[in-house]
């Protein structure tokens, strides 16, 4: 884990409110594993006390790309970055996705910028699988072409029907699951809104498959120190946990999304906390 001052190489509009920021990152870039994130600071945004976490969309030798959506003051300030500016990167952070086995079918489910968090996984996978991409509108369907280029099947759903099937991404997933009864050796990887993650978790547990979910929570330090980003997880021999705060009789403990996560197997997550 490192801090690096990274030069902005480009910062282009993708679609709607989404942009791709490409940074020169000779130190952190090469170390990133799929599902890990970086914690970013804009030197010109001096009033922001917190860094902002972003999944790494792509790394390519000494460069690192982030695919981001403009939602607030941090991301709007990011949109103003131009070549010649620099940002401070802290990373790579967190525990990413586990490696994909040759003998399974990876099933990726993404909502909005969740596609960005899954692309590196797909690129490094030893087998091609299928990715379900969902969003409200055409603009929320990101980098589908990139997945197709590397040989993955892409199923698109939008809530307004403006691209792909009309409906929720989980409806397309359900239709596919009903159809593809013969391939039980699958593992799910998902990133997107909480409701989508819960739906994927439910399908996986019903079918007896593993599902690795990448959680998104506002963060403080990103380093495991502030305990802002905690998630309730089950106490089990396999679950990642902050041993010291276990009260065993309660059956649950906190895991830090920035350190033990952001990726958790769905059975370890206790959903009653928001």
């Amino acid at each position, binding site marked *: 884990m490192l801090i690096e001052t990274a030069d902005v190489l480009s910062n282009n509009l993708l679609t709607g409110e989404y942009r791709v920021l490409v940074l020169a990152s000779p130190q952190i870039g090469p170390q990133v594993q799929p599902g890990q994130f970086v914690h970013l600071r804009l030197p010109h945004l001096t009033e922001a006390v917190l860094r902002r976490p972003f999944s790494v969309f792509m790394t390519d030798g000494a460069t690192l790309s982030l695919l981001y959506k403009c939602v607030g003051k941090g991301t709007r300030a990011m949109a103003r970055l131009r070549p010649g500016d620099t940002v401070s990167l802290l990373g790579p952070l967190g525990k990413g996705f586990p490696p994909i086995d040759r003998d399974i079918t990876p099933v990726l489910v993404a909502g909005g910028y969740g596609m960005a968090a899954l692309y590196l996984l797909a690129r490094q996978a030893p087998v091609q699988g299928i990715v379900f991409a969902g969003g409200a509108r055409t603009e929320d369907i990101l980098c589908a072409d990139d997945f197709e280029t590397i040989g993955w099947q892409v199923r698109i759903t939008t809530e307004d029907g403006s691209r792909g099937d009309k409906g929720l991404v989980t409806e397309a997933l359900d239709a596919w699951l009903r159809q593809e009864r013969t391939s039980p050796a699958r593992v799910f990887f998902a990133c997107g809104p909480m409701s989508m993650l819960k739906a994927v978790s439910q399908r996986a547990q019903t079918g007896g498959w593993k599902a690795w979910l990448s959680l998104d929570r506002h963060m403080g330090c990103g380093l495991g120190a*502030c305990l802002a980003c905690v998630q309730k997880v089950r106490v089990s021999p396999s679950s990642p946990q902050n*041993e*010291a705060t276990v009260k065993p009789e309660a059956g649950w403990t906190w895991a830090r999304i920035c350190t033990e996560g952001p990726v958790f197997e769905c059975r370890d997550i206790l959903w009653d906390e*928001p």
Partner: protein
Amino acid sequence: MKSETNMKPKLAVSVGGIAMQNPVMVASGTFGYGPEYAGLVDLNRLGAFVVKGISLQPARGNPTPRLVEVPGGLLNAIGLQNPGVDGFIRDYLPFLRNYRTPVIVNIWGHCLEEYRDVAERFNDVPGIHGLELNISCPNIKEGGLAFGIDPAMAQRVITTVRAKTRLPLIPKLSPNVANIAQFAKIAQDSGADAISLINSIPAMAIDVETRRPVLANVTGGLTGPAIHPVALKQVWEAARAVKIPVIGMGGITSAKEALAFLIAGATAVAVGTANFTEPRTTLAVIDGIGDYLTHHGIGDVRELIGSLQTEYTPHDQ
């Protein structure tokens, strides 16, 4: 241009018997228990290491969201999640013992007895150099008021812990009082070796779209640059009221705010929220203090402490 001496200025200070190579500590709860920042910051360079608040039993803290950014700062309501005194000694302390830096444990309790017992538990533990007594946390039993805002209760908890610990004792005062000098004196008279201030300022954020509090705990504590001017005034007033050393904290992001605390009378300072913004802030502060002393031809940081010049007397109105 000021004349610059060639000698490296002396940075060492002593806080209530704890010898520090420099006056820059980390603030409790913002640097974890050691391993979290160790990959980025050489812990051996710090003046002292203050761990996150420890209680007798493990504590789960508050539900989430626990943190939100506000203009100039941060609101937090972590709720003092911690592994308990035994968990800390077993799982974290061995790591900290690998470093030369003095370790100060921040402790808290739900009631007088818990404060006493957790303090006592550290008496026979090697590798602990001091206790910071957090009397500025909400949600404790006795009388429904925090120990830190009731003079009688502050006096009782400090006296009780004083009687039980061999270690340097550093009560951490609440900023949420009308007269900080009064509490500083109570701490001194109750046997404290130093005091630290300020803790976070009680505050709140509301999401107007949902009409709900942003933090699950409804209220939280404000920290970061926004509180520096408030902290500076309280440190200045506390330092003039007592003889024991004062540790100043609140909104340090660079050597500038740290120097202001020293000039106002603090013997040492602690960096909190800024660790989240720039993990290496402490190192920049240490170097910056050194550079300032060199530039101003001051040989020893202790010459700076309490050196504020205030010749102005306000007009009568």
